């Protein structure tokens, strides 16, 4: 299996899915000739032509809106939003239409589409280029939310997202795009949506993370007997894997880079407090970004959860 970084893995997934299924089309700003500002769609225009790889005007609501239309007609559009910070103009289309068309029509119409977008902080880019507001999309019945944590997960999950019968918001941790290479299988290879992955078994504590925080959590907890869960799908999330682990360890730390209040960590903590209270030996701790907008380059490292804060939370928990 060739070693690939996440950009290559995502590009491969798109190419293979487009080859496999002529319903798959790609649209967005600069996805064609330029191959995407991160090159995720590189080479697709040359290979599949203008009808399947569409450079659109600068209009996020219409990118998602036309993708919805295409999906209603039976295509499987993959829309790129150039950065997650520019997905908000399309919020209404996602919430009011993509998420609801199946329900609104009692199953007669549906929106099998994928909205891909670079996600998260750590690349020292301008404002709104480092967002991680996944929780918004997890509060939308009818939308699935997927966050890969590395090249091979990225490939398998993107293939699954494209094949999924329902709309998927697919968040690509920008910081990981070229950070590591991994063995990534060619050909038909999928990772199921809705299943978390136990990255490392352990018995003293359960650490839950996703996206670019996973790598950071794994490194931070090298010297601890921690069970580390890579959530992968945030909506619908795999509570079983989490609860099983919490039953075993009795201690939980949740790590995410989004601001704490109403971040996805809140839902995880609430689920645990609801379903596993008797197993808990201490508080459910969240190590998150603070309740502020993501700062620019000079201060962003004070925003992002770092190894010290992750370890401090674990050490605090181990005292219970």
């Amino acid at each position: 299996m060739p070693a690939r970084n996440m950009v290559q893995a995502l590009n491969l997934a798109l190419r293979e899915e487009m080859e496999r299924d002529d319903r798959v089309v790609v649209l967005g700003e600069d996805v064609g000739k330029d191959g995407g500002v991160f090159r995720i769609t590189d080479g697709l225009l040359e290979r599949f032509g203008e009808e399947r790889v569409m450079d659109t005007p600068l209009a996020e609501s219409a990118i998602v809106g036309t993708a919805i239309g295409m999906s209603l007609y039976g295509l499987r559009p993959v829309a790129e939003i150039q950065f997650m910070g520019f997905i908000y103009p399309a919020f209404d289309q996602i919430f009011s239409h993509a998420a609801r068309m199946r329900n609104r029509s009692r199953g007669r119409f549906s929106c099998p589409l994928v909205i891909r977008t670079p996600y998260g902080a750590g690349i020292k880019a301008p404002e709104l280029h480092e967002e991680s507001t996944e929780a918004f999309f997890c509060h939308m019945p009818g939308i699935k939310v997927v966050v890969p944590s590395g090249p091979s997960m990225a490939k398998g999950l993107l293939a699954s997202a494209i094949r999924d019968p329902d709309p998927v918001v697919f968040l690509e941790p920008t910081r990981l795009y070229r950070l590591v290479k991994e063995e990534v299988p060619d050909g038909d290879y999928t990772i199921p949506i809705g299943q978390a992955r136990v990255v490392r078994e352990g018995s003293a504590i359960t650490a839950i993370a996703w996206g670019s925080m996973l790598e950071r959590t794994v490194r931070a907890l090298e010297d601890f007997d921690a069970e580390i869960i890579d959530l992968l799908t945030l909506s619908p999330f795999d509570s079983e894997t989490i609860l099983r682990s919490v039953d075993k360890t009795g201690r939980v730390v949740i790590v995410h880079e989004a601001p704490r209040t109403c971040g996805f960590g809140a839902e995880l903590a609430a689920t645990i407090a609801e379903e596993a209270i008797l197993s808990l030996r201490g508080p459910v701790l969240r190590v998150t970004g603070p309740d502020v907008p993501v700062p620019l380059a000079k201060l962003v490292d004070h925003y992002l959860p770092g190894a010290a804060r992750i370890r401090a939370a674990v050490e605090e928990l181990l005292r219970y």
Partner: protein
Amino acid sequence: MPRTVIETFSVTRLDILDAEGNVDEALLPPLSSDDMVRMYELLVLSRTFDDRALSLQREGRIGTYPSILGQEAAQVGSAFALEQGDWVLPSFRETGVHITLGYSPALLFQYWAGDERGLACPEGLNVLPVSVSVGTHIPHAVGIAMAARYRRDRVAVVAYFGDGATSKGDFHEGFNMAGVFRPPVVFICQNNQWAISVPRTRQTAAATLAQKAIAYGFEGIQVDGNDVFAVYAATRRALERARSGGGPTFIECFTYRLSHHTTADDADRYRSASEVEEWKKRDPQERLRRYLEKLGYWSEGYQRELDERARGIIDAAVRAAEAAPLPDRRDIFTTVFEGLTPSQARELEVLHDAGA
């Protein structure tokens, strides 16, 4: 290097059938007498539905309902031009379109009574659920049309919306996308002069809505929206253009909402009775009646018979809608995704057990 004129544009308007029932023969589209009679019957049926819906609402048998009174020609005339297989995206005030397309009035009543099953468009028809959120369905029409063209299907797509919708960002983004990709789509605006209490002149400073198409590089045309022939002719031409690869068209149907915005509204708060009276004189049904009368296709007896037939259809639809068993409460879960999520499965049980 003086200040030079680099582009010029004009906006045209089409009128064929006037308020007295006279037609401009030169402009009359190719319609058989059967077609014209059928159009008239659809106008009557739509109005009969509308009337009944208002009574049902007063009796608490359906919820809030938006009347189409005065807009029947814009709806019937445009929908009459469509072909089997075309895709239609209504806003929330298109009873006449639904009825013309053969969408079951019973389903419509069911929907207005608060039952989502009324929006499950029967197979064979491609009518999207109503878009309550004003104007936000416009980009969908563009995407559907792009997909149809990609599939080499000779399908056209029509999106309906009101004058208020032209102020929305999605109108702009969708129109601009349509201009760039030129898919087979027709945009039909029923400019009924009001968006709830906001008059057309305060909705936009543009002299016409049709001219908004200039911003997107395709044709915009205004038609007399109370003139069923003008609406039909303009739509037909736009659909032909769409099907033959000529790209999008924007049609502004200049019409009037004779009733309140919805049954929850009181239009007397914001507009004058005299304005409404003026517009009543331009009634779309009455002018087609006059024309048909001149042609000898209309008589009082025919009208009585027609009214009775329409009432019969609507009565039956109401009966069917009200005879439908209540939806199963589990229905709130079953079409959110293709399958149930784990949390939904758990919630479904709670719902089932506690029941409140």
